C-alpha cells in the first residue's frame, strides 16, 4: 500500500462496522451487515489496488487529460478522495471555472429572488434527513442552500427543481467544498444531461420514452409485460433520471455511476436502467399484477446485485449489449419530435 492510501481505506474499514456509513448515512435497522462485510472485504482489495494506480497518475503538477486509459480507470472507479477533482477535470468544469473564477462568489452576493430562496429553504431539512452531516449540523444545510441558490440564479430557466437538492447534497458529501459542488452541478445540468429540470421537463419526458423504447427493442417480453399490466414507464423511472440514481441505488453504486456519467455522459443512465431491468428480467416477468410489479421495480434497486457495485459497474457495459451513441441521439430526436407534435395537437384542441 502506498503512503497515500491508508487513511481513506481505514475509514472505510471502520465504516463497515458502524451504523453510519462513510458518507454519513444511517444504516437501516434491518441492514444486512454480514453480506455487506463479505462484499466489502473483497471490495477493499479492489479499492486498494485502484488507489495505487490512481496515485501514479495524479500528483502535483500533473494534469488529467481525457484518454482511453483514464476512461478505463474511471470505469473501474475513482478513489473517493480524488472524485471531486477528477469529475471537475474530465467533465471540462475545471476550464469553465478557471474562465470565471469569481462567478460563484458573485452569485452568492446576490441580489436573490425571495421566492426561489424560500422554495429551496423548504427542501433543506428534507434532504437526506437520515444523514448525520445534514440532520445534525447547520453547516451542510447552509452549504446546500448556497449551492442551490447560486445555481438557481445562474440558470434562471431551470431555477430550482426538486431533485437537485439530492444531487447537490451528494456532490457536497463527496467534494466537501461548496464551490466545487456548484461547478459540478452546473456541468451536469448544462452540459451532461438534456433538459431534465426545466419547467416543462421535456428532456426528462423524452428520455423516459427513450428508455422504454430501448427496453422494447432489447427485451420485448418485458416491455409487453409492463405494458399489459398498465404500469407507465414514467412511474418506474422518473426518479432514476431526476436523481441520477441518488436515493435510488446504494450510495457507493451511485457514485461509481457518477464517475462514468461525468466522463462519458448521459448514455450511462440508459446502460444502468437496462442492466437493472435485464438482470431482474425473470423476477419482473413473474409479477402477476400491477402492485407486485411496482414493488418489484422498487426491490431491484436494493438487492445484492446493486450492492456489489464493482461487479454491477462491469455488467452495465456488457449486459445491455451494444448501445451506440447515435442510436440514442436518433431516438431522442424522433421521440422529441413526436412529443412536440402531440403537444401541438393538444393545444389546437
Amino acid at each position, binding site marked *: 500500500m502506498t503512503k497515500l492510501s491508508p487513511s481513506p481505506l481505514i475509514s472505510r474499514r471502520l465504516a463497515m462496522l458502524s451504523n453510519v456509513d462513510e458518507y454519513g448515512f444511517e444504516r437501516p435497522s434491518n441492514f444486512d451487515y454480514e453480506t455487506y462485510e463479505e462484499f466489502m472485504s473483497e471490495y477493499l482489495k479492489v479499492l486498494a489496488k485502484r488507489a495505487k494506480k490512481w496515485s501514479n497518475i495524479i500528483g502535483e503538477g500533473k494534469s488529467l487529460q481525457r484518454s482511453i486509459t483514464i476512461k478505463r480507470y474511471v470505469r473501474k472507479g475513482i478513489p473517493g478522495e480524488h472524485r471531486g477533482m477528477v469529475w471537475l477535470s474530465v467533465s471540462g468544469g475545471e476550464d469553465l471555472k478557471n474562465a470565471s473564477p469569481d462567478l460563484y462568489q458573485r452569485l452568492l452576493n446576490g441580489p436573490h429572488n425571495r421566492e426561489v430562496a424560500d422554495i429551496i429553504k423548504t427542501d433543506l431539512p428534507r434532504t437526506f*434527513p437520515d444523514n448525520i452531516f445534514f*440532520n445534525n449540523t447547520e453547516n451542510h444545510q447552509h452549504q446546500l442552500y448556497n449551492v442551490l441558490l447560486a445555481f438557481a440564479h445562474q440558470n434562471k430557466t431551470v431555477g430550482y427543481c*426538486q431533485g437537485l*437538492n439530492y444531487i447537490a447534497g451528494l456532490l457536497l458529501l463527496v467534494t466537501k467544498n461548496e464551490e466545487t459542488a456548484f461547478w459540478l452541478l452546473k456541468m451536469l445540468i448544462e452540459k451532461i444531461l438534456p433538459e431534465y429540470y426545466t419547467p416543462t421537463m421535456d428532456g426528462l419526458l423524452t428520455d423516459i420514452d427513450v428508455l422504454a423504447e430501448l427496453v422494447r427493442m432489447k427485451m420485448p417480453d418485458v416491455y409487453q409485460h409492463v405494458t*399489459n399490466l398498465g404500469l407507465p414507464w414514467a412511474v418506474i423511472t*422518473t426518479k432514476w433520471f431526476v436523481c441520477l440514481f441518488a436515493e435510488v441505488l446504494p450510495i457507493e453504486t451511485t457514485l461509481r455511476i457518477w464517475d462514468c456519467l461525468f466522463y462519458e455522459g448521459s448514455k450511462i443512465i440508459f446502460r444502468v436502467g437496462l442492466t437493472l431491468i435485464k438482470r431482474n428480467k425473470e423476477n419482473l416477468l413473474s409479477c402477476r399484477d400491477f402492485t407486485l410489479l411496482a414493488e418489484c421495480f422498487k426491490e431491484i434497486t436494493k438487492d445484492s446485485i446493486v450492492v456489489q457495485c464493482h461487479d454491477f459497474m462491469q455488467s452495465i457495459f456488457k449486459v445491455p449489449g451494444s448501445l451506440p451513441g447515435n442510436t440514442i441521439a436518433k431516438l431522442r430526436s424522433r421521440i422529441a419530435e413526436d412529443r412536440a407534435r402531440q403537444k401541438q395537437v393538444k393545444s389546437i384542441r
Partner: protein
Amino acid sequence: MRNIRRPIRFRTKDNMANRGTAQRPNGQTQGKICQFKLVLLGESAVGKSSLVLRFVKGQFHEYQESTIGAAFLTQTVCLDDTTVKFEIWDTAGQERYHSLAPMYYRGAQAAIVVYDITNQDTFVRATTWVKELQRQASPNIVIALAGNKADLANKRVVECDEAQAYADENGLLFMETSAKTAMNVNDIFLAIAKKLPKNEQAGNGGSSGQGRRLAEAEGQKATAGNCCK
C-alpha cells in the same frame, strides 16, 4: 433525529399491506375484497408523504424527504364485511412535476387533495387540483380534501369553516388532519373507503383501466370499472 412514533393500528391489516394480491376468504370467512387506486395531490411540503407514512406504517418523521416522481404503497382497511385495499400513489408537489400527474390520477377511484392549514397558497393550489380532477379524472372519483398540519393551530391561516364550505359546494369529503399526531388520518381513509362503490354494478364509468387489468391479470373475476371480487 427522526421522531419515529409507535405504530397506531386502527383496524388495518398490516400483514397484507405489502402483498400484491389480497387474500381471498376461504368459503366460511365473510366478505368482499375491494381494491382501489388512490392518489395524493397537493403543493410541495404540505404533508402528502407524511399522511401516507402515518396511514401505512404508523410513523411520523419531522423532516420527510421530498418525493421525486411518485411513491407507491399499499394499505388495507376493514370496513364491516368488506376488506378495502388501497393502492396509494403519493406524488411530487412541485409545479414542474405537474405534467406527470395525469399518469397518477388516471384511473384513480379516489384522491386526497392536501393543503397546509398554515399556508393560504397551498389551499388555493388545492382548489386548482380539485378543478383539474373534476375535469379530467374518472367522473365518479371520490375526492377528499385534507387540511393537514392541524397540530399547528396557532399558526392557522386557513379557517376550517372556509374549507368546509368549499368542500360542501364541491361535494368533497373534508377533514383537518395531522400526520404528526395521527389526528383524523385513518379516519379520512376510512371515510373514503365508505364512500367508494362496493357493489359490482356501481362502478365508476369504466375508466379505471388499471384496476380492471389488475383483476384480469390475477385471473380472478373482474368486473368492469370496479374492483370487487
